[in-house]
């Protein structure tokens, strides 16, 4: 089968995820039994000992399956992806969060969807049948919906979930898109998918569920709404 020839590099940025990364790695191995893949952990010098746990995991699963590509200090998510991508050896790249909001059980459906459709990008979407979110309060839902309606009306991106970051990319496509992206935080996710869509990439969607993080704490924050609006304006004039 075609599946055998492909290799998937799963890039996981971490910052203080010592428990989550171990659970995540276990679940990835559980759900990707007969797939060729590697996990690239990009840790930004987490003070909680994330890297020690990753080293233990390397002993258990093999250093060729789990790659630790650390950076000395917290340098941000966008550059973490770029850093991880440099070390990726697969022809496909998956980007996912370490905090278990992105459940590895969906990985097979990403892979299947890509093989079925030949898409350049498969993006996980929470806002279709079979998808969903758990653990958000009304305010968070309201901002999410508002942001989505605004972006759909102004940007016509052709995908239903712009800020979700659980995605599978053809490696060459990701390399091409990622270097033209300058935003930070989750505007970065939006910029990637909008730019890809403008370049005429074939983007397929699979439903995913999103359970808000149970362990550890959120690293994004601050004036997210202002950042979002700035990002939207930026994308309006540059894409």
């Amino acid at each position, binding site marked *: 089968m075609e599946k055998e020839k492909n290799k998937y590099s799963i890039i996981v940025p971490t910052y203080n995820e010592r428990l989550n990364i171990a659970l995540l790695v276990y679940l990835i191995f559980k759900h990707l039994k007969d797939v060729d893949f590697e996990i690239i952990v990009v840790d930004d010098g987490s003070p909680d000992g994330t890297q020690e746990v990753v080293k233990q995991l390397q002993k258990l699963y093999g250093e060729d399956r789990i790659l630790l590509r650390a950076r000395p200090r917290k340098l941000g998510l966008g550059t973490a992806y770029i850093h991880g991508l440099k070390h990726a050896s697969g022809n496909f790249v998956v980007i996912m969060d370490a905090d278990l909001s992105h*459940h590895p059980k969906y990985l097979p459906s990403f892979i299947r969807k890509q093989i079925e459709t030949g898409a350049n990008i498969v993006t996980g979407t929470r806002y279709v049948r079979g*998808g969903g979110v758990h653990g958000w309060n009304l305010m968070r839902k309201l901002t999410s919906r508002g942001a989505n309606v605004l972006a759909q009306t102004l940007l016509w991106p052709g995908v239903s979930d712009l800020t979700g970051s659980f995605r599978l990319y053809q490696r060459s496509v990701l390399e091409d898109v990622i270097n033209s992206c300058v935003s930070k935080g989750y505007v970065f996710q939006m910029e990637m998918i909008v730019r890809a869509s403008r370049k005429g990439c074939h983007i397929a969607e699979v439903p995913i569920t999103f359970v808000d993080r149970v362990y550890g704490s959120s690293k994004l924050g601050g004036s997210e709404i202002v950042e979002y609006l700035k990002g939207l304006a930026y994308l309006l004039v540059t894409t």
Partner: protein
Amino acid sequence: MKQIIKILSILIAIAAFWIGLLESSVVPRSNTWLLPIYLIVSLGCYGLLMVGVGLMKFPTCPQEAGLLQKDVAEAKEFLKQRGIDVASD
């Protein structure tokens, strides 16, 4: 073409159409004057409606939280046996 230009062209097209209506006065001018206001109000309503509908139909997955807990327990059990430090502090 940049997205902002697309949107501006649509707005200009609408404005041109409106001015055309004003000039030709096929419909009474007093009505034509109000059209942009209707347009803005209906856009606003559309936005609110979409957000409202989105909120009401917001897909949730409470069962997933339980499933995740099971997966976490299973993973912890496995990792603990293999001597990996999974104590949650």
